[in-house]
């Protein structure tokens, strides 16, 4: 049980609660809250020295944020 692992687990739980029940409940606040469990996952990966997975996760998160922002942008424009 390394400090990174404990911190990662705590951040993961906090982040899941934040992303599951965001306040105010808008798309953007939920999208931002989604970054918190991602950080928890990164810390757990650091604890286990999974470098390749960590770097790829960072790259993929950037693309997925781009994809989601595009959908949210169009949804908000339609309303």
């Amino acid at each position, binding site marked *: *049980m390394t400090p990174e*692992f404990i911190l990662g*687990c705590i951040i*993961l*739980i906090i982040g*899941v*609660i934040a*992303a*599951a*029940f965001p306040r105010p*409940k808008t*798309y953007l606040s*939920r*999208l931002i809250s*989604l970054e918190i*469990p*991602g950080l*928890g*996952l990164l810390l*757990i*990966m650091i604890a*286990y020295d*999974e470098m*390749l*997975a960590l770097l*790829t*996760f960072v*790259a*993929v998160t950037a*693309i*997925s944020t*781009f*994809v*989601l922002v*595009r*959908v*949210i*942008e*169009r*949804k908000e*424009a*339609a309303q």
Partner: protein
Amino acid sequence: MDITYPVGLLVVAIALIIGFTAIVLERDDLHRILLTDLAEILALVLIALVATDLAEALILPGLVVGISELMAVSEVYITREGLRAPPAEPAFHIEVMDSAPGILALILVGYGIILSGFTGGVVAAVGTVFYFMCRGHDERFELIETVSGYAWAIWIGAFFIFMFLPQYWFFAVMMAGGAILLKVMAKMSLVGTMRGGPDV
């Protein structure tokens, strides 16, 4: 005895219960898509807890499948809801976007080819994404997809060489590195076309 793994499993179980409760209670479809991303992160934590090279080998395809699934679902959502792109000029347009793309894309793609492998593919793809974003695109995407398909076949061929002719391992490494470069580049260059346009 090491209690790390049981503790991690317990944390993931709690997180999964919270996350899926939110999905069940949610009525809005776009919120559900966002929560799918949360479920994906939790699945990755579950794999990461295995803590061996196997975990890394499973996380990499998991990430790629996750991002392609997210792109597909978001496209389906946009089509179903009939959402159109807001009729606006491109967000910003500066002089360097007219003059730089050619040379910058060339440098990045060249550097990516030297690096080869997954990393090289990503570097080269950044070059093509930049080019598509600045210049627009009227490419024939069937061609890119065909190249990507052949690259996959070469990659599998390289693995057969590893298995049956291990003395030629260096040749196989080069084949696999070049093929995965093409594959990653072809896939990621699609991101540069997401502003819409003909033939997509």
